[in-house]
């Protein structure tokens, strides 16, 4: 692995989530949790989370916490608090299961009553029945091309890997000063209060080095996520982001050039009062999508609708074939090695598992 200049990379790993296909099952979240965040101080850490949109997200109201760049200038941000993260609770399992009072007590967090958590506003969404709307958005570190976290660290503890652009932290250099948490506009860096270091998604780099896709990608049961190198012109990520331009970065105005991209959702048509389709305007307001993905979302939606029309009329569409994902492993080639066939080298203290 090469640190290079630590600020830019020759190649960039990237991901595309199709928000039309994500069903909010949290399999990606759990695959990541089980693999990476089971140590001390990581109880509340979910490097990959799936939230309902419109919603306040995780941490709560993260989009109002600042960070990133404007016209290339770093913007002040703040750290999320433990209350805004929520999660990592202990539950009264003993009391419910073994105390003999199972009919009187219910399962709940022990201690201070939780006010927020990783998936707190699930399925609330917005709008009025029968035209209410919501969709799911998986979020993880964007391994940005211009990572605000790397710039902010006064100790040079963070860097972009030369060979794939993954943003990593040398924990032996980290002193827990948390400027990276402040500077990250996506609020996807966590502070480990037990180890006094910051931590975030490592894009499963030990798996990539063995040609295995990240756990969140490989475990998705909905074929909703593609993974590959952004400059691999034969790969689906390049086609969706660069060729068809239907996969868009979240909040491009944050100025960090994120490398997790999203196919914007197109929800079912609205209903009129007499239960007919109302296609005069979309169920999901385009202005909402513009607030997330920028003005480019209109062209992306137009392309998606046009290509859907092509297939509806019996035609062939490379874009639709890519989005349908007929062949699972094509979604992350050449990182399609079966992890169950690899003899993994483990740290002594880590949990045994195989095949994630």
């Amino acid at each position, binding site marked *: 692995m090469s640190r290079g200049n630590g600020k830019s990379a020759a190649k960039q790993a990237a991901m595309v989530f199709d928000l039309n296909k994500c069903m909010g099952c949290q399999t990606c979240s759990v695959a990541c949790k089980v693999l990476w965040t089971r140590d001390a101080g990581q109880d509340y850490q979910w490097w990959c989370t799936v939230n309902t949109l419109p919603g306040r997200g995780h941490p709560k109201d993260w989009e109002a916490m600042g960070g990133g760049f404007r016209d290339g*200038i*770093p*913007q*002040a*941000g703040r*750290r*999320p*608090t*433990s*209350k*805004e*993260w929520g999660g990592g609770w202990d539950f009264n399992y003993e009391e419910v299961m073994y105390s003999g009072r199972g009919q009187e007590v219910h399962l709940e967090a022990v201690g201070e009553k939780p006010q927020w958590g990783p998936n707190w506003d699930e399925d609330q969404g917005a709008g009025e029945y029968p035209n209410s709307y919501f969709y799911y958005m998986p979020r993880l570190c964007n391994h940005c091309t211009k990572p*605000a976290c790397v*710039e*902010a*660290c*006064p*100790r040079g503890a963070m860097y972009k890997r030369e060979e794939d652009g993954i943003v990593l932290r040398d924990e032996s250099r980290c*002193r827990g*000063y*948390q*400027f990276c948490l*402040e*500077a990250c506009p996506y609020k996807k860096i966590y*502070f480990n*209060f037990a180890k006094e270091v910051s931590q975030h998604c490592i894009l499963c780099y030990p798996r990539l080095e063995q040609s295995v896709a990240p756990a969140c990608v490989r475990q998705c049961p909905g074929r909703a996520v593609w993974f590959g190198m952004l400059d691999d012109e034969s790969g689906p990520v390049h086609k969706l982001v660069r060729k068809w331009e239907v996969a868009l970065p979240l909040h491009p105005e944050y100025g960090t050039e994120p490398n997790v991209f999203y196919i914007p959702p197109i929800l079912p048509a609205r209903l009129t009062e007499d239960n007919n389709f109302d296609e005069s305007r979309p169920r999901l307001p385009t202005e909402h999508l513009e607030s997330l993905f920028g003005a480019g979302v209109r062209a992306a939606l137009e392309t998606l609708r046009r290509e859907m029309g092509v297939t509806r009329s019996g035609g062939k569409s490379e874009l639709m074939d890519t989005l349908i994902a007929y062949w699972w492993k094509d979604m992350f080639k050449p990182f399609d090695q079966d992890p169950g066939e690899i003899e993994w080298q483990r740290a002594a203290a880590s949990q045994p598992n195989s095949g994630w």
Partner: protein
Amino acid sequence: MDAIKLQLASKTLLNPFAAQWERAPRVNLALRGTEAAEQPSAYIRTAWAGKRVGSIRALTVQAANNRQDLFFRLEWRDDTCDLDYAGGVTFPDAAAVLFPANGDAPLERMGTDAQGIEAWYWRANRNGTGECLRFHGFATEAPMADSPVTTAAQHRNGRWQVVISGPLAMHSAPARVAFAVWDGSNQERAGLHSYSPEWLELVLS
């Protein structure tokens, strides 16, 4: 400043309220805040532009030795006792005794590549265990091996009283010292702190 000789056990001198500390001369120091514009990343420079760095501006110090160890007692007013991170709201308060590792290391920058600063470092969330760190500029600290630093601290009536101790052999006379304080509730950490702007001659008696 005078590090008077007190023939006492280290355990006694590590108590900031030990009566024997009354015998050590008190030196009152005016502190300065580090400059936001001198911080090592553009993010910190931008985020702290116009903010007050170094909210602690007055420090009282005393020094003593018992032929084996060197002791510094630091006392300052701080209405907020920041013992830890308070769930991501604050940083733990901290303080350090600074020694020039090579020549006139600039205190306003916490040393340079060529002129390092050695620090005996106390942090409020580390019970009794100090660190010996070497700085070559803001936030460049690296732990030094085999250099035990012991600390003891109490926050009473809105004041921190902290004793920081290390082996006398590391800094036998003539030596020079300075001091730095980090106020956690003002988000002070790394190169954001207040410091005594002049090196003081340390006289062992």
